[in-house]
């Protein structure tokens, strides 16, 4: 106790002696107009673009950001509650770009885009500030994607593999499992030394509380930070939320770590930016979005990267989410984000309602860079899977018209049915990569052809249990990831042994 007291006194002494009363000249302006979270400020001739401004209201200082610099006017967004700001209040420049506090202590916490705690656990202790807006790393510091980021979702890891440093869009209608894919991916990073940031933009706070609870249950909050700008927050906070989340991720990147960041979702972000832009009287363009809405997202997603060894070797993998209206991926924002990202996972309502969950459309989903980062064994077993899945859907549609099918077609149909059955996966149950290799190996090598379609999932569960009990496969996978003779023999052995115990095979 005595020691602790001494420590506090010492620290106080240090703070008091370190305090310097300095005189600085500050630019001041006055609020001319304030409405809808936007303020027009006179004066402030020295204000910089996206500089932090302080509004001196009767309730203390409120932060704002300069967005429009005009002749004698500055248009600023107010971060936080603007109702205390009145006309003619003083506004001072800070000569600082908007930054947020970052650090290890943010892991396991829910914060707002300004870095303030929202989970009632007190303000996190941080030592560093990172700018919210930052130019993305350049070509010299980068390296191509070469390490896989396992999502734990069979359909994705097999057909649309994601690499560390990649930007993979998750796109689909509302209520179709977009967030579920992102959350499963976060849960699957447990023990893989990947930090996660989940940025919720304009989401219902009830949804976020459920997500945080799920992540806590899965033990995933230990390495995750949630940046929340809820549906009730002003558009200004929604607008800076993804950039703030990225600043949190960049802190870990600078330490050479791998980070996964989820932006849920960028459609609401674009809408928030549209609101701000229209209130700032910037000219509207297509769908009333301002002209720079492409840059809004491209500069954000460009900050996802894989750095080379000389620059720490860290990575930021981004999973932006876009919500479409009635499956229309040719709308303005979806096409923009599709063209920015390195691939997309397209979720389809038809598949979802047929019970294929996750409802991934194999034809429209692609990963432009991930295949070079795929685990070798997986690459070998999953190589033809995308083609087969797409062919099956075509054949299935065709086969509805006639009953007489040749042997080859009916074999493909049967295989396809089992493939789609294997792709089905429950929420919050990501699957280890060796189990994925095992089931896909069994499928493409015909070991599952005599398993009735309705019992495929039962077969799958049993097979995993059999692999778990022996534990050999997991052990072998920790030493190598190539599908060589030794591994193939072990896979065959595991499957055959398990099949011997079954009585329902036809």
């Amino acid at each position, binding site marked *: 106790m005595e020691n602790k007291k001494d420590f506090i006194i010492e620290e106080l002494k240090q*703070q008091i002696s370190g305090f310097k*009363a300095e*005189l*600085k000249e500050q630019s001041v302006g006055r609020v001319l107009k304030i409405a809808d979270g936007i303020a027009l400020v006179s004066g402030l001739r020295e204000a910089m673009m996206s500089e932090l401004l302080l509004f001196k209201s009767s309730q203390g200082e409120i932060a704002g950001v300069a967005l429009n610099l005009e002749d*004698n006017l500055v248009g600023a967004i107010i971060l936080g509650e603007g109702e205390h700001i009145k006309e003619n209040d*003083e506004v001072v420049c800070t000569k600082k770009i908007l930054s947020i506090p970052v650090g290890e202590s943010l892991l396991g916490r829910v914060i707002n885009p300004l870095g303030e705690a929202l989970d009632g656990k007190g303000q996190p202790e941080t030592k560093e500030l990172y700018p919210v807006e930052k130019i993305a790393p350049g070509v010299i510091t980068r390296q191509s994607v070469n390490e896989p980021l396992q999502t734990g979702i069979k359909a994705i890891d097999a057909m649309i593999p994601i690499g560390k440093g990649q930007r993979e869009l998750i796109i689909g209608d509302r209520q179709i499992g977009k967030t579920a894919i992102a959350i499963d991916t976060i849960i699957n990073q447990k023990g893989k030394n990947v930090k996660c940031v989940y940025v919720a933009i304009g989401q219902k706070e009830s949804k976020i509380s459920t997500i945080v609870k799920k992540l806590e249950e899965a033990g995933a909050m230990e390495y995750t930070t949630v940046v929340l700008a809820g549906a009730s927050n002003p558009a200004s906070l929604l607008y800076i939320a993804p950039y703030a989340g990225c600043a949190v991720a960049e802190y870990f990147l600078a330490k050479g770590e791998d980070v996964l960041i989820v932006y849920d979702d960028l459609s609401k972000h674009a809408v928030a930016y549209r609101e701000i832009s229209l209130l700032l009287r910037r000219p509207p363009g297509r769908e009333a979005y301002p002209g720079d809405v492409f840059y809004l997202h491209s500069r954000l997603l460009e900050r996802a990267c894989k750095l080379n060894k000389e620059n720490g070797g860290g990575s930021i993998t981004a999973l932006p989410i876009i919500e479409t209206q009635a499956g229309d991926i040719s709308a303005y924002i979806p096409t923009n984000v599709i063209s920015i990202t390195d691939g997309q996972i397209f979720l389809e309502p038809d598949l979802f309602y047929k019970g294929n969950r996750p409802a991934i459309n194999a034809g429209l989903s692609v990963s432009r860079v991930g295949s070079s980062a795929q685990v070798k064994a997986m690459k070998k077993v999953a190589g033809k899977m995308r083609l087969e899945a797409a062919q099956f859907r075509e054949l299935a549609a065709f086969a509805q018209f006639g009953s007489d099918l040749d042997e080859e077609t009916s074999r493909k149909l049967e295989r396809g049915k089992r493939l789609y059955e294997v792709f089905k996966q429950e929420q919050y149950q990501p699957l280890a990569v060796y189990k994925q290799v095992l089931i896909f190996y069994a499928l493409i090598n015909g070991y599952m052809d005599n398993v009735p379609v309705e019992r495929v999932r039962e077969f799958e569960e049993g097979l995993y249990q059999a692999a778990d009990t022996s534990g050999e496969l997991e052990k072998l996978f920790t030493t190598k990831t190539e599908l060589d003779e030794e591994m193939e023999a072990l896979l065959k052995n595991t499957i055959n042994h398990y099949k011997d115990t079954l009585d329902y095979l036809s």
Partner: protein
Amino acid sequence: MKISVPQYTRALRELIASEPSQAKQIIANFVALVVKNNDSYRFAEIVEQLQADIKKERGEVEVELISARKLRVESQNIISNYLKKQMKLNEIKVKEIIKPEILGGFIVRYDDKIIDGSLQQNLVNFKKILSN
């Protein structure tokens, strides 16, 4: 190209200074030019700017000096000399305001600048450091 208000006023004043006898004609031409440029809506701003310029030239620029108690003459001189140097003026008018709520120190306001050396602001800054 859009012409800014200070550019208009500077041009006008320099012209009049070079040919004071032609002042009336120059002003008439100036008004015609502003109207021709579709800038007539900015007349109010131009007049305001002209008044400010003239004030500056005549050393009538007002500076607010806020303090908790009346400052000693020496302190006042130090502050006004500093401001003269900053604003590159020979003469300024110092308007003293007594505001006990700033507790101590002083606040200076000029142009669109503020120098806040009040005890109140320093205490606020100190509180911020301690709470961090």
